[in-house]
């Protein structure tokens, strides 16, 4: 991979396309409790990750370029401007021409999405890392729970 490929910056239009793709990877929930991954701003997270993951950078840039070609062939203005069905059809088409694009992007999207404060809240979790607060765990009634094990050992 050449240094130019790795450092070639992502354009504003490509970031918009990326956000739309992310919204298809993790769409918003019907009740709007969970935001779409694009609307959550994860394109910026992916962009940051791309900066120190050359493979992801290359794959994303290639995937977005391929998507752009499909959009142009259809004579559409942009991927974002397409209807949902067309967007999905294009992404599915990419699974054969750019087989690594969606799995790699999905991996990083999941990683960014499921550590985001808003998503943790939607999962009914405290939106914080596990340390330093930790979690309360009341002790179990081990006498009752272990009674069958003890009875069996005595036999």
């Amino acid at each position, binding site marked *: 991979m050449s240094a130019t490929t790795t450092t070639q910056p992502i354009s504003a239009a490509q970031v918009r396309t990326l956000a739309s793709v992310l919204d298809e990877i993790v769409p918003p929930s019907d009740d709007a409790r969970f935001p779409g991954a694009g609307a959550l701003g994860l394109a910026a997270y992916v962009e940051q990750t791309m900066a120190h993951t050359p493979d992801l950078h290359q794959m994303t840039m290639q995937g977005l370029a391929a998507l752009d070609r499909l959009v142009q062939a259809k004579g559409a203005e942009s991927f974002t401007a397409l209807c949902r069905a067309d967007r999905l059809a294009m992404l599915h088409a990419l699974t054969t021409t750019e087989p690594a694009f969606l799995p790699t992007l999905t991996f990083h999207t999941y990683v960014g999405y499921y550590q985001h404060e808003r998503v943790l809240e939607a999962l009914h*979790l405290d939106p914080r890392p596990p340390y330093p607060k930790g979690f309360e765990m009341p002790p179990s009634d081990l006498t009752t729970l272990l009674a069958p094990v003890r009875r069996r050992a005595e036999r």
Partner: protein
Amino acid sequence: MADAPVDVLIIGAGASGAALAWSLADTRMNILCLEQGDWMDPEKYPAAGRDWEIRGFGDFSVSPNTRGRPEDYPVNDSDSPIAASMFNAVGGSTILYAAHFPRFRPSDFKVKTLDGIADDWPLDYERLAPYYDENARMMGVAGLAGDPAYPPKALPLPPVPLGKLGETLAGGFNKLGWHWWPSDSAIATQDYEGRAACINAGPCLTGCAQGAKASTDITYWPVAIRRGVTLKTRCRVREITVGPDGLADGVVYYDADGAERKQRAEVVVLACNGIGTPRLLLNSRSKRFPEGLANRSGMVGQNLMFHPYAMVTGLFEDRLEGYKGPMGCCLMSQEFYETDRTRGFVRGYSIETLRGLPPVSTALWGMTQGRIPWGAEHRRAYDAIFDRTAGMVIICEDLPEGHNRVTLDPELVDTDGIPAPKVTYRLSENSTRMLAHAVARGKEVLEAAGATETFAEAPLPIAGWHLMGTARMGTDPATSVVNEWGRAHDVKNLFIIDGSIFVTAAGVNPTNTIQALALYIGDMIKKNLANLFD
């Protein structure tokens, strides 16, 4: 450059090196430990950031090949279905370990007598029992007295909480009438010896920021250093050298600046783990030991045992609060531990239940299982799994086999140019059958506990974290590397104290036994100081 000679030189500051350093500290000998890694800063452990889960795949990966920190050495494990894992720092692999801390059972020391396989150990449970007790006090072991699977034992702290998930699984074991007991865990469940109590945060496998988990950088080392032991970090030993009398006379190592240095010592102790120790012995070739130091038997590197793991996961309807509690410690069952030949294999296994998958891991696990797709179905699929999984690992006893081994890779080297180890390992027929039995029993108990679906992976490819058998102990110099108290048959001032010296692997995690052995060897060294090299 040569450093001032010392009485005892310990190589490796992990589980065993720390315990021995502490044990010998009261002799007032001049003791030095050389460790290739550095002190860890618990403030920088991943648990304090929301990206903690993904860092377990990067700079806190269990695999030295993935981490690639400067202090790591690469391991060629391409010829093994199980990848080698370890950590290189003060504390060694205890920095990452789950701290599940069972003892061997009395039967584990005499499998030849009981089952006609492998070899008996040259010592028994009774001999090690006081050292297990001492280790429990030093590491701070939590557990519940009265486990019918064991003789009475010291457990200074109350057990880790089961939580809703543990109680649910315990219900499954009870329904089937199987043995289970809260896990013995090297975790301070209350404030203990200056360590803060566990806060059930979960991410023990990327280091315990709370300092509740007993990694040896916060247990044995501070006391050993206070008592006069010197620990030098970022010093990587290349080879152990031998004098004209055939005794080890010291080591050649690279210091933090990469400069080659010589350290002389009266006694050399190897504590580099089941891969690092045979690597160093094989790298220490001389005219007298052309096949590697202390390797006249040819046993150095042979008989590598890993503990093949099965991982069985169940999906439940209710939420289980599985993100709470120490990730690897909950409860353990030894229902299928001893040999029953009707099962089609010898020896047996322990079932250790885990906690559930946290948010990112749920998504990634679902992705690899083909259960959580991207797109319109994503939300429903994720929500059906998150906090509804409960899993277990099943630790199968591995038998010693000569063809499973550590050798030197002909090309691979570490950052100092020292030849790296290569692992060659095949799963035995016995292990294959045991894993199949274990998976079936794992699914059975999960279903009894209420799982609606179960998933299994066996052998678990990443689970090469128990490294044993590659410099084994025995009374016969033709078939073993060290004697019954860890002294090399061929080199009378060389001791080996890590998992390399295990004769057999048992069906439980090894670290409590590794450390009990190190403490026992420490005591034997002290008792025999006057005629140590006779």
